[in-house]
């Protein structure tokens, strides 16, 4: 088996390296990735079509909005799937012994909890900054959501899972993940009902007192908030399910 694996790996590696010689050299401005019409269009026209200076956010939430919406749905489904696979219900949940052998039942460490107490608000504030400032600097819903989710995971690590679940229970987390997708799809549908196409944010300028470019700016912030909801809550739900082996209680 091991020899077969080495053979497969060496063969694949040889083919990949052989193909690599046909790729563009490092940083070549003439490479297809940098010189294509799509790339040029995004760079030249993003600032005209929208008021968002960060092209990555504009491409993510506007030009490729449909793709991003279903990426969010994938994350949501992953959260549901993990709960469905792991969560103990009914008889299993009550039968399981309260403590595992490897479980630490020490009181939460004083230094750790006090540090976390100071850190969590800063982390969450930074998450909001990354989310809200994602249009003009690197950032956005995915990044902000992951940072926000990490703050809840940090609480669960420093104290225990119930303490974190007092703040965000897993049931509520999945509910909020769905709300995030509804926010995203709702903005898309709103644009559709206003006469545009699905996710054509510019149409929102008919009901909000802003220009078409600015409407796309604000709608992008809206969908990023939806993404952040889903990512935050699913990250925490994944951690809670995996760390407690589906019992959703106890320490790590």
């Amino acid at each position, binding site marked *: 088996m091991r020899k077969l694996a080495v053979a*497969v790996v060496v063969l694949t590696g040889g083919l990949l390296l052989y193909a690599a010689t046909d790729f563009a050299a490092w940083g070549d401005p003439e490479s297809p990735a940098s010189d294509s019409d799509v790339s040029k269009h995004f760079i030249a026209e993003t600032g005209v079509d929208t008021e968002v200076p960060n092209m990555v956010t504009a491409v993510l939430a506007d030009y490729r909005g449909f793709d991003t919406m279903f990426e969010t749905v994938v994350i949501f489904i992953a959260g549901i799937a993990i709960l469905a696979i792991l969560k103990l219900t009914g008889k299993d949940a009550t039968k399981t012994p309260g403590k595992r052998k490897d479980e630490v039942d020490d009181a939460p460490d004083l230094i750790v909890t006090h540090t976390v107490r100071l850190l969590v608000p800063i982390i969450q504030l930074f998450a909001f900054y990354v989310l809200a400032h994602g249009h003009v600097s690197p950032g956005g819903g995915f990044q902000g959501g992951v940072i926000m989710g990490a703050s809840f995971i940090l609480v669960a690590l420093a104290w225990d899972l119930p303490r974190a679940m007092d703040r965000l229970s897993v049931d509520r987390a999945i509910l909020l993940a769905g709300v995030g997708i509804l926010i995203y799809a709702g903005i898309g549908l709103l644009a559709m009902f206003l006469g545009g196409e699905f996710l054509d944010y510019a149409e929102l300028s008919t009901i909000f007192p802003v220009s078409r470019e600015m409407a796309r700016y604000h709608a992008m912030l809206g969908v990023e908030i939806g993404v952040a909801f889903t990512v935050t809550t699913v990250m925490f739900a994944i951690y809670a399910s*995996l760390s407690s082996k589906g019992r959703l209680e106890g320490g790590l």
Partner: protein
Amino acid sequence: MFGEDGGLLRELLVERFNYCIYVVLLLIGLYAMIAKNNLIKKLIGMSIFQTAIILFYVSLGVKEGASIPIYKPEHDPHGHHAEDHADHKPKDANASSSASADAHDDHHEVQALTDEQTRQYANPLPHVLMLTAIVVGVATLGVALAVVQRIYRAYGTIEEDEVMKAIMEESQGIPSTKGSPKSKKGASKKRKAKKA
């Protein structure tokens, strides 16, 4: 090829070193996925494989002499919208009725970037694709870990061969008393449930 000695090696190791790194990482991941017996190690291999692809895309997006794909204030077509927004509001309203192609002909100040300026920014597309790929990768890795935990709960092991043996015994109807010493109550219970 480039008028230097050792053409192919130079081409590969000097100008395309980024591809070598991604190939090596990808192969480590591939080997772990095929050869390792432990399911968690297989998943680690999958993660390394994924990282290789992410590095590949990001390194494709590198452009010499280019900045990150965020407009510098002097290039942003709407860069000065803060002060002249109020003046042009009526114009915007007019523009909204016409096609977006002529929309920016109406505004004199909103112009697409010239080719010279376009050259100063990297392509945003690889960054966008990898941004979502990373988060979706975390989510799928979470599902995979959940499945492994479930396998452990059912069979008391995460070694692939032991799990396969247990499944084979199960399908041949051999009583599960011979199960590995590690297997716990949950394992036999599950087997009974499956038979019933």
